[in-house]
């Protein structure tokens, strides 16, 4: 049977893996749930009791700094079913951008033929990567940074690999190739906005997991 993927985020303790503490993770309903990258404020925050509006998200957006690069402060899971630990629509993804290993989990229920990888695209057509957030046509300038943490911590102040299009991707098994059995692979992600970036934008880039099965 085809290998299937479940994506999970850690919302409790990003020092523990899914295998030992599954209760610390929320599985994404990929049809309805989504990630919110935000500075956050008194409204857009952990444990919201309603889905945030576009106006609320705009008000809580990260601001471009004229002098220093800014790492987007928070990543929130917008949980459409709002049935985890109470009736909350948002949960803070713990450890995002930090020196933490178990943040984003990619749970495969069987073997793959090649190494799974994470990609970032403009849209679900997977044909272009020219959004400002993805480097505006220069993949190495992508603001979306990823690091594979399947085998180790990312390190203090990790830089990560810029994600954009087909050429700048994140291998999820640390470059070791295909997975032989059901396995959970891990990554940490962050968005870093360059200092004095000239083009403010609200952009919904698409994160894509590419994997294979027999």
């Amino acid at each position, binding site marked *: *049977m*085809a290998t*299937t*993927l479940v*994506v999970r985020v850690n919302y409790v303790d990003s020092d523990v893996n899914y295998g030992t503490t599954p209760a610390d993770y929320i599985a*994404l*309903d*990929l*049809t309805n749930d*989504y*990630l919110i990258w935000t500075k956050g404020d008194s409204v857009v925050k952990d444990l919201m009791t309603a889905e945030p509006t576009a106006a609320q998200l705009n008000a809580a957006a990260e601001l471009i700094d004229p002098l220093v690069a800014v790492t987007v402060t928070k990543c929130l899971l917008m949980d459409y079913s709002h049935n985890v630990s109470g009736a909350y629509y948002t949960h803070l993804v713990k450890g995002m951008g930090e020196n933490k290993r178990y943040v984003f989990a990619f749970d495969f229920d069987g*073997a*793959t*033929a*090649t*190494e799974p990888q994470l990609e970032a695209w403009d*849209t*679900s057509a*997977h044909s272009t990567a020219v959004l400002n957030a993805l480097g505006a046509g220069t993949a190495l300038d992508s603001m979306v940074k990823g690091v594979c943490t399947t085998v180790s911590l990312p390190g203090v102040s990790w830089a990560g690999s810029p994600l954009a299009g087909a050429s700048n991707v994140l291998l999820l098994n640390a470059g*070791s*190739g*295909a*997975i*032989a059995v059901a396995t959970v692979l891990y990554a940490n992600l962050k968005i870093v906005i360059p200092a004095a970036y000239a083009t403010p934008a609200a952009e*919904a880039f*698409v*994160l*894509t*997991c*590419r*994997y*294979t*099965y*027999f």
Partner: protein
Amino acid sequence: MNKPLFQVIFEDNSSFNGGDYHNTKWLEIPNDKKIRTIFYLLPTGDYLGLGGFKRIYQYIEVLTDLNGAESGKKKIDFICLIVEKEDNYIQYKINHQDIGVEINILSKNSGYIEKLNPIGWRN
């Protein structure tokens, strides 16, 4: 009745039929028999016939978006067949986006080949 994803003809004239995209049955192809010919289904409904190889490998590559308009769908990008010849490998990428077949020649010491999961090879 749906066409099988592939049909394998062995040297002893016996055969094996594949399943569908969800359950290809590739790993159920007996490895103790030598394949003479394989016919693999193309998106057009035609079959691609291959033979005269030492070994053959198959996988399906899919994309799953974590957000956006098609979030959560498992979209087939292409099917990959790799045949091992005497001096090299030939890769056939059956594209499911524009229904073309891309053919690449890979060297015997290809790092890409070395990182494939070895359970997928069939004789």
